[in-house]
C-alpha cells in the first residue's frame, strides 16, 4: 500500500533515493545516514572491506556531491563504520566498531579529530555503534559490546553513561541505534533483546517498546529508532524487514513494508541505459524490489518526513506523515 492509514495517522510513500554502486552515484550496504542542511544527506556505506567503503554526500534531490573517507586505519579512514551523526556546525561524527573510535570530520570530509580507547572501563569503547547529538552538541554513543550508553562532549570527554549486560530495565544486549526526542529523552534499539528502551536524558528507564499480544507489533533485532514531533516512535525492525510505528505510550500503530514501486532517478537512468534490464523488469513481478530488505536506520526531518535506509537494497525510502489527508470515497 502506498498509503497506510492507521490510528488517525496517514503515512504516504513519497519516493526513494539511491542505487547500488561501488563508488560515486549510489550506495553500498548503507549502515546509517544523517540529514544535513539544505537537503544534504550523508550516507555511511559499509561497502566490502577494502573497496567501496565511503560516506556518500548527496542531496535529497538526487544530486551526488562527493565521496568522503575510505577504508583504513589512518586519520579520516574507517574499517567497520557503524553510525553517523551531525553537530550544530554540521560536523560529521562517525563510529567505527572495529577501531573502537569516533572520527570527527567537517562537512566536506576534512579530518578534524578522533577519540576513543578500546576497553570496558568508563569512557572506553567496545564496538561503538549508534550516535545521537543533543542540543548542546554532546554525543550519546551506544557502546554496543559493553552493553551500555555513554555520553561524551564533542571532544570525547566522558560526561556519564548507563547500562549493563542483561534483559532487565536499563540493561542491554548488544544495543545498536539511538535517538533523542524533542524533550531530550533517549531511545535505544536494544538489538539482541528485541526491543527499544526509552530513558530520561540522564539514563533513567522510562518504558520499552517490544511486542504486542497478537504478535504483529513484535520487534526482531531492531537496529534504528526515530521519534517525530508528535512523539510517535519509528523502529527499523531489521529482522522482520519492516518499519514498526508506535504511539508515544508504546501502543502499536502499524508496520510499513516498503513501497519503492517507482525507481529512484538514479535507478531509472540505469534502466534507460540498459535495454536488457528494462526488458527483464517487464517480464517479472517486481514486488520483491519494492519491499524493505534489511531496513537498518530511520530518521525524520523537521516536517516529520520519514527516511528509511536499507542495507541490502542500497537506498533510502521516504514517507510523509500527512496532516490534511481526506479519506477517498470508500465506494469509489
Amino acid at each position: 500500500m502506498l498509503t497506510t492509514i492507521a490510528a488517525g495517522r496517514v503515512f504516504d510513500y513519497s519516493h526513494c533515493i539511491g542505487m547500488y554502486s561501488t563508488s560515486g552515484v549510489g550506495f553500498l550496504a548503507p549502515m546509517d545516514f544523517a540529514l544535513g542542511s539544505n537537503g544534504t544527506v550523508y550516507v555511511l556505506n559499509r561497502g566490502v572491506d577494502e573497496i567501496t567503503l565511503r560516506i556518500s554526500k548527496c542531496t535529497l534531490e538526487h544530486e551526488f556531491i562527493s565521496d568522503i573517507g575510505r577504508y583504513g586505519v589512518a586519520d579520516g579512514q574507517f574499517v567497520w563504520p557503524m553510525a553517523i551523526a551531525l553537530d550544530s556546525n554540521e560536523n560529521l561524527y562517525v563510529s567505527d566498531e572495529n577501531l573502537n573510535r569516533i572520527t570527527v570530520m567537517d562537512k566536506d570530509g576534512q579530518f578534524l579529530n578522533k577519540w576513543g580507547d578500546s576497553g570496558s572501563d568508563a569512557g572506553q569503547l567496545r564496538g561503538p555503534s549508534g550516535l545521537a547529538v543533543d542540543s548542546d552538541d554532546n554525543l550519546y554513543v551506544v557502546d554496543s559490546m559493553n552493553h551500555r550508553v555513554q555520553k561524551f562532549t564533542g571532544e570525547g570527554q566522558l560526561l556519564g553513561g548507563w547500562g549493563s549486560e542483561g534483559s532487565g530495565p536499563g540493561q542491554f544486549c548488544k544495543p545498536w541505534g539511538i535517538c533523542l526526542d524533542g524533550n531530550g529523552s533517549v531511545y535505544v534499539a536494544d538489538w539482541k533483546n528485541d526491543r527499544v528502551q526509552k530513558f530520561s536524558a540522564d539514563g533513567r528507564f522510562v518504558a520499552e517498546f517490544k511486542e504486542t499480544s497478537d504478535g504483529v507489533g513484535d520487534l526482531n533485532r531492531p537496529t534504528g529508532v526515530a521519534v517525530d514531533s508528535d512523539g510517535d516512535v519509528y523502529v527499523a525492525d531489521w529482522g522482520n524487514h519492516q518499519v514498526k510505528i508506535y504511539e508515544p505510550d508504546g501502543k502499536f500503530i502499524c508496520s510499513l513494508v516498503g513501497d519503492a514501486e517507482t525507481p529512484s532517478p538514479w535507478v531509472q537512468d540505469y534502466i534507460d541505459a540498459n535495454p536488457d534490464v528494462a526488458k527483464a523488469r517487464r517480464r517479472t513481478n517486481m514486488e520483491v524490489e519494492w519491499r524493505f530488505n534489511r531496513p537498518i536506520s530511520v530518521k525524520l526531518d523537521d516536517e516529520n518526513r520519514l527516511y528509511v535506509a536499507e542495507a541490502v537494497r542500497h537506498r533510502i525510502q521516504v514517507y510523509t506523515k500527512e496532516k490534511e489527508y481526506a479519506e477517498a470515497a470508500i465506494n469509489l
Partner: protein
Amino acid sequence: MPSQEDIALMAHLMRRAGFGASRAELEERAARGYEATVDELLNPGADSGIDEDELYRYFPQFESSLAPVAAQTEWVYRMVNTRWPLKEKMALFWHQLFATGNSKVDNPPEMLAQVAMFREEGMSNFPNLLVKLAQNPAMIYWLDNNGNHYGSINENWGRELLELFSMGVGHYSEDDIKEASRAFTGWTIGAKPPRQPVGRFYWSFEFRPEDHDYGQKEFLGNVGNFDGDDIIDIIVKQEDTARFLARHLYNFFVADEPQVPAWNITPPNDQKAIDSLVKAYMESGADINSILRVLFNSDFFKNARFAHVKSPAELVVSTVKMAGNYNQPRTGFTQLAFECGWQGQELMNPPSVESWHTGSEWIDGGALVRRVNFAAKLLSDTSLPGVKAIVAGLKERGTLSPAEFVRACLDLVGPVEVDEGTFQELLSQAQQGGDISWDSEETSADSERRAGVMLALIAATREFQFA
C-alpha cells in the same frame, strides 16, 4: 582421563567429520566417548549452525552480494564457526559432488542458497536430496534444464544426473539419458528482477506443465509416463547408485581414491569397505545419516588416519581453527576465501561439473608452497590464542629433551603422526637449541620462540598435508 589413543582417534574423527578441533575439545569429546561423539555429529540442531544475525550485522554485504568473493567468504565464515561440523562438512561434500559454478550461474546469493540446501538436506536421504537438487535454481541454470523443453530436449542435466551425480559411467545407455531428459522437461526457474541496480534477487523453481512431456518413457528397463520424481525414484533403487555414492563418501571421508573418471575401469582401493557402505545404503533406503554412521564407526575408517590429502578448504579452515583467531566476526575472512582459491579450490567455482580432482592432485609446486606458507605463518605466531594454548600445553609438560619437545609438539598440533625420516629432521632442528625449559622469563621466552619455529616446521611436513 582419555588415553592418548582415544585422543588420536578423536582427532581423526574431527578432522574428517568436521574441520578439526582444539586440544581441549578433543579431550572433552574423547572423555564422552567415540560413539557418543559420532552420534552427536549425526544429530545436529535444525538451525544452520551459526548466529546469522551476528553474521549479517557485521557483514551486511554478504546478503544479496554481487561479488562472488562475498559468497565464498560467508561460507568460509560458516565452516570456521559452525556449531554443527558434520552438517557443514556434508555441505562441502555435496558441493564437491554436485559441482556447480558461479562462473556460469553468475549469482553468488543463489550459489549460497544451493549450499544452504546441501546444509539442510545433506544428511537426510538421497532421493529427497536429488529431488531438491533437480529443483535447485542454480543447478537448473548450471546444467541448462531451463532450456530442456517438451519436443526439444536438452540432455545436459539428464546426462550429468546419471554420469556424475548418481550411477556413474557404464551403467546406463544414451537412450536412458534422453528419456530422463524428457521426464525433466518443464522443470525450470521463474523470472526474477535483474541483479542491478538495487542488488541481487533469488530465483525460484517453477514447473511449467505446458512445457512438460507427459508421454510414455522407457528408463533403465522401466516403462511409464515418468516425470522427474519417478526418474529419481528409479535411479536411487539401483545398486550402481549405492556403489557410486559409497565410493564418493569413501573418497571424501576415508581415503583418497583414483579420480572419478577412472572409476569405471579401476576398482576401489577397499572393496569390502565399499560393500559395507552399499549394504547400509540398500538396507536404510538410501538414508545418508545411516550410511555415515556405518562409515564413522567402521574399522576401515578408524584405521585410515592421514590417508586423505586435505582439500584447500579443509587445510585453510582447520588451520585457522587451530590458530583460534577467526572464531568471531573480524576483518580478514575475505583473505581466507581467496586463500582457498589460490591453493586450488575456489569455492562455488569448480573447474567443471566434474568437480575438482582430489587427493594428490590438490598438490602441485605452487599449491604446496602456498599451503605450507599459510599454515606455517599462522602456527608460528605464538600470540594467537590457539598457538598460545599449544605453548601452554608444552609448558605443562615441564622441561623437555629435544626428542620429547618434538613429540609433544606433534601431539599437541594433531596428534600428527610422522615417519621416522620426518621425525629425525625435526629432531635435528630441536637439538640445536638443547632442552626446552621454563625456569625463568628468559628461558620461557626462548622456549616459546622455539615452539613457534617447531610448529612452523611441522606445518611444512608432508604429514601435515594429510587429514
